[in-house]
């Protein structure tokens, strides 16, 4: 069976890259699309810009920049949200791109998740990715807990509630 295509939002790239797990997404997806606004968000900081460029170079057929979605639809969805239109643009582009190509959205932000729901798309977050990797035997429950501790220690945003639920299911202590 062909692996699905994933479209990822900036906060999930940051969290998964901090754990050096982005390359392991090749186990879950055939391609990982990075929309324009997500790239712009990641390019704002030198460290994430360099990392993204390295990943694109090392996994050029997997980590793929994408721009071929309807910007008009993105503008409609962002109308009235912010005056600058920058906030939420990454999540919105991820959802519109996923709808266009039938991809799964990887997003933690509540607005992006609500939008994906409205679009009747399959969507998951960083915690789901960790869980899938654990189910594939690529992470032990202990290592998974260590990953979450690292995110917390480094003050990288992730949904703590969902993380604790997963730890409980795996018989690990909550954070």
């Amino acid at each position, binding site marked *: 069976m062909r692996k699905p295509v994933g479209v990822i939002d900036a906060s999930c790239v940051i969290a998964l890259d901090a754990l050096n797990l982005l390359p392991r997404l090749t186990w879950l997806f055939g391609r990982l699309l990075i929309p324009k606004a997500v790239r712009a968000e990641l390019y704002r900081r030198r460290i994430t810009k360099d990392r993204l460029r390295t990943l694109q170079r090392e996994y050029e057929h997997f980590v793929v920049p994408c721009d071929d*979605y*309807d910007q*008009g*639809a*993105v503008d*409609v*969805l962002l*109308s*009235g949200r912010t005056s600058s239109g920058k906030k939420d643009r990454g999540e919105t582009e991820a959802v*519109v791109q996923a*709808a*266009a*190509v*039938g*991809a799964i959205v990887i997003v933690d932000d509540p607005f992006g998740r609500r*939008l994906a*729901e*409205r*679009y*009747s798309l399959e969507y998951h977050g960083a915690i789901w990715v960790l869980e899938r990797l654990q189910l594939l035997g690529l992470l032990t429950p202990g290592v998974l807990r260590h990953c979450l501790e690292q995110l917390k220690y480094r003050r990288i945003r992730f949904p703590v509630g969902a993380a604790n639920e997963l730890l409980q299911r795996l018989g690990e202590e909550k954070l």
Partner: protein
Amino acid sequence: MALRLYVAYGTASDQVTASRLQALGAVNGLNVYVPPSYTRTDTPASIDPKSEANLRAADVVLGVITSAISEACWQELNSAKRMGRNTIVMAEPVAASRLEPHFPGNVLMIDPADPAQAESGIVQFLKKTELEQDAKTALIALGTLALGLLLFAPQD
């Protein structure tokens, strides 16, 4: 629960219209599914499983067709009919005349010279359907927007 709408668009060239309708629906609280582009580039033997699941879940199926109808679009509209979904198809004259025998009474011909006809057709269609008043109001608004998008869509 939000009204679930399925947009069956004619060919790849209608995808932008469908995508904008999806966005307009989403900002107005509707759940709108638009089949992905690969469904319009391949010639499938049967309906895409994801599309079928979303058709089953849909309250209303809206066909949006300009010049041509892909095999996938036919399959979706026929499946909607078999499943007994409320189906309305907005189409330009050439496509409308092909569709009318298959979906009698459910095809709205979009005549650029007389767009009001299609507009009143939407209202007539919704009068026949059993939906909440709020849902009907939302669909009239979305149908009007679809009409506008189709009328102003760039021609090949």
